[in-house]
Structures are given as C-alpha cells and as structure tokens.
C-alpha cells in the first residue's frame, strides 16, 4: 500500500511537465523541489537534532557563490559543483564548531550571527561577490549529455536530486545513527551517560545538513543562473525555518509540504492577492493554533480521527485513562 502510493506519487511528479500547464508552473515545481531539499537539510538539525539554525541560507549561499565564482573563473561545471560542495561542507564544519558551543537559544544566536556575516560578505566584499549586483552565470550543465537548459529538463534533474535527498533522509531516520541523533535531541545528558558522543553526533548532523544545503545552493544557482545577497539574507533563513516548522519538523515529509506551501504562496497567490505576505502570515498563525506540530503530523492526526471514528467509542471505553498519543 505504502509502496504503491510512493510509486504513484513518483509517476505523477515525473509526469508533471506534461500536466502542469506551462513553463511557469514547471518552474514553480522546480523551485518547490529545490527548496524542499534545502528544508530537508535544515530539518536534520531542527527536527532530529533539536538545534534551530537561523543561518542556513548562509550555507546555501556559500555553495551558490562558490560555484558562481568558479564558473565565472572559467572552470567547468564538474569542478564548480565539486568545489561548491566542498566549500559548503567546510563552512558547515566551521559553523558547527562555533555554534555547537551552545544549544537552545545560544545555538540560534550564533547561527544567526554567522548567517549575517555571510550576508555582510556577500553585500560588502565587492571584489569577491560583486556586492549588490550579484553574480550571473550562463549555461546549465549537461550531465551525461542531457541538457538542463529547458525548464522541464531542469525540473527532472531537480526531481532526481530531490528523490535522492528524501531517500537519504528516510534511511537516516530508520538508522541507528538517526535513533541516536533523536536521542541527543530528547535527553542529551542521558545519551552521554549511555556512551554516545553527543557533540560528535551533532557535528555530523550539521555536516549532513550543510551538505544538502549546499546541494540546494547549487540548484538555486543553476535555476536562477544568478546569485545575489538576497539569497543569503536573514529572511531567506527564516523562510526555510518556516517551511520546516509549518510542514512539521522532525517528520520526513513535513519540510517538503512546508516548502510547497511557502513557494506556492510566494509565486502563485501573489499573482492574485497583492498582500500575499499577509495571507502567508495568517496561514502560519492558523497552523500554529490548529496544528502546532505542523501540517503533516496535524493532517495525520486528523486522518486517524476520521478513519477511526466508528471504532473510537469502543476503544476509548477499553483504553486506560491517560492512554493518549504521546506528544
């Protein structure tokens, strides 16, 4: 059943360029997928490690700027991609070493500061980043001779990367390392007493998060063929965090749903409603009130309630008091 649903979803997504009804919507779908990859990466920290980062656009931006510089410097796509990912990982390692000196609000503030430093560099260090004007690149790569120039081709490439990202997350969640990571989120002291190297686990989670942020940065650059300080601004980090939280942090599909929500509101709703930001804000408030743990867990709870209705009365008569789903 699950497998069938998964296959069906994959087929529908793969066929999207044929039914979406135009380039505009194909491009929106590409954006959703690339931001979903970014949100999935951020969710490793926010959802599974319990560490809220407000500087992740910095990591995305470092990969995008790195690749842009390498490309404008005359390097090939392969070198640019490899170099950008290495740069993103190195930056993530540095971010992690600095930010993991704290947890909770301390971690938030340090990542915020680091993100702002990246923004400052992008904005002010003109000889490297071209400042406010940003860097344009021409051309997208052609992996295995498959040109990504057209919107539908780029969409398919993004879909492949997205499926890889989602698959790697599913694997992580079910793995012993993933179980340990969630343990460090819930009971770090206990985990240390059980023999887990909590700092190292968090550090590795940060690297994984940084890697997928870097991948998203590359897709961002190739999608827009342009990168500017806007990509690394605080609002970009906050938006990614909203995607994770509104969809459901610590769930596999939550960040994906959140990315869809934000991108659709930004691009589609803004065509109809001038004050789309207001609508987005109202939606978030509604989510916080009615589904405080996010859309995916909230919808799942609603679904259980609807499907279990006939059985509920009988079950609740038998169930012990206090036997409610743990939160």
């Amino acid at each position, binding site marked *: 059943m699950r497998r069938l649903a998964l296959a069906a979803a994959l087929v529908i997504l793969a066929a999207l360029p044929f039914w979406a009804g135009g380039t505009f919507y194909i491009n929106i779908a590409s954006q959703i997928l690339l931001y979903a990859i970014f949100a999935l990466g951020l969710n490793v920290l926010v959802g599974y490690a319990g560490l809220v980062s407000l500087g992740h656009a910095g990591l995305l931006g470092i990969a995008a700027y790195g690749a842009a510089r390498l490309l404008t410097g005359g390097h090939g796509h392969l070198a640019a991609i490899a170099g950008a990912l290495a740069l993103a990982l190195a930056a993530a390692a540095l971010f992690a070493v600095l930010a993991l000196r704290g947890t909770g609000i301390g971690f938030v503030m340090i990542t915020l500061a680091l993100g702002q430093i990246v923004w400052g560099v992008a904005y002010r260090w003109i000889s490297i980043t071209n400042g406010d004007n940003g860097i344009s690149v021409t051309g997208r790569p052609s992996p295995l001779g498959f040109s990504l120039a057209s919107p539908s081709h780029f969409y398919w490439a993004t879909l492949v990367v997205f499926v890889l990202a989602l698959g790697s997350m599913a694997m992580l969640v079910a793995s012993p390392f993933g179980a340990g990571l969630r343990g460090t989120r819930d009971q770090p002291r206990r985990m240390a007493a059980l*023999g887990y190297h909590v700092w190292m686990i968090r550090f590795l989670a940060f690297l994984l998060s940084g890697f997928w942020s870097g991948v998203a940065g590359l897709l961002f650059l190739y999608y827009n063929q342009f990168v500017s300080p806007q990509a690394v601004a605080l609002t970009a980090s906050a938006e990614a965090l909203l995607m994770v939280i509104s969809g459901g942090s610590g769930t596999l599909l939550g960040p994906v749903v959140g990315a869809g929500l934000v991108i659709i509101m930004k691009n589609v709703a803004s065509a109809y409603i001038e004050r789309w930001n207001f609508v987005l804000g109202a939606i978030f408030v509604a989510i916080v009130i009615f589904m405080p743990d996010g859309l995916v867990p909230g919808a799942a709870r609603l679904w259980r309630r609807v499907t279990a209705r006939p059985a509920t009365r009988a079950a609740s008569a038998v169930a012990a008091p206090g036997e409610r789903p743990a939160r």
Partner: protein
Amino acid sequence: MSGPSAALAVERLTKSFGGLLVTASVDLAVEPGERRLIIGPNGAGKTTLFNLITGELRPDRGTVTLFGRDITRTPGWHRAHLGISRTYQIITLFPRETLLRNVTLSLLGRSPLRWNPVARLEGQTALIGRAREALARVGLEHLAGRPLSQTSYGERRRVEIAMALAQDPRILLLDEPFAGLSIEERRDVLQLVSGIPRDVTIVMIEHDMDVALDFAERITVLHFGQVVVEGTRGEVVAHPRTREIYLGE
C-alpha cells in the same frame, strides 16, 4: 586510602558551585563486587558526587580512578564504555519511544553500530534480542512494545535499571532507585537489585536510610559535602554522628 584493588576510588574530590562547596575533599574506595550505600540528608552532595564520577561534572580538584585507571579527565561518554552505568534520581528516559526502543538505545550506546547511518535499526535482530533479554531481566518483557509514557512510575524505574544493566557495567551507580515508589514497588526493585551478580560493583545513593539498609555492606554518610562516617552497616548505624545527622542534634 584506596588500595590498587579498588573498583572505584575517589581521592580528595572537590567541587564548588560559586561559593557553595558541594563536594569537600571526599575520599571513597569501593572494592570490586561491593555493595556500597551512600546516605545523607538533602543537599549533602550525593548526586553531585555521582555526577563527578560519571563525568557529567568536572571536579575542581581530586581524582577519580576506575580499576586503577585515572579517569578524572576522561569525557563522560567514554566512561560509559569503560564500564560505568548509572540511573537517575529524576527519571530521564525517552517518553515517546517504546520500552524496547529505550533499552535498544542503551545497548546501541556501547556498540559501534551507533555511528551507522545506512543500516536499518529495526533489522538489528541480535541487538533487539539482547534488549528483550534485558527487559525480561527486570520482568517487563510483556510491555516491550508499549510507549514509555503509558507505563507506571515503578515500571519506569525498572526500565532505568534494565538500561543500565543492558550495558554490562562493571560499576553500577543507582541514584535513589526507591524514590517515589510504593512499598510493593520498592520490594520489587530491591529484589531486582539484590539479584545483580557480584561481578557488578554497586554504589547506591539513598535519602531514606531504612529502605536500602538491608542491601548495603558498607555505608558512607555524607553531610555538607564531606564524608562524616564510613564503615560496615552495624558500625554506621551505631555511630553517634549518624544519629545526630538523622535524628537532629
């Protein structure tokens, strides 16, 4: 003070929080296989002593030695691999997970598998089988699949002990294992702890002297961070200072 044969030795261990001296040059030597009880009124520094032994806190001065090995500077997570396991006074388990998953996490902590990001934890049948055995040891096998949040306080205590025992410790530190339990539950836990084989050295903290008295061979009385009395059960119970501390001056 401590012979080279000691399982756990603490020498001149000192820790203060700000101006408050909570552990004041404590010496302690526990022989292999011994059952040691540490008692003392609230605020005597019992839990702080445990935290210093497990590495959750760093001492200002003094040393901690485990089977002749100086572990004063060893990080806490590594001490678990050297054979120190503990339970907590305030239960700190994973409430959303099942009992089986709780114990599995404990076993995983001592296994190199904990670094594996690609294997399926559900597929680790050997590990999960050992977790089941550990639950059976505390008589909770039948609740293995139940979320921890749906168990009683006494059952959680036993899960704590199962998790500590699953790690195959050389030294087991029990921090008030009877706190908050009913009389029957206390009896169960006492029976459980008494059944632990002698190759595990046990140090137990108890606030209430009556409960754990039967269990202890040697007793250390802590008061304001200092060792006031130490000796066999009979010696300590008969000592005037013990009476003074417990019955009021």
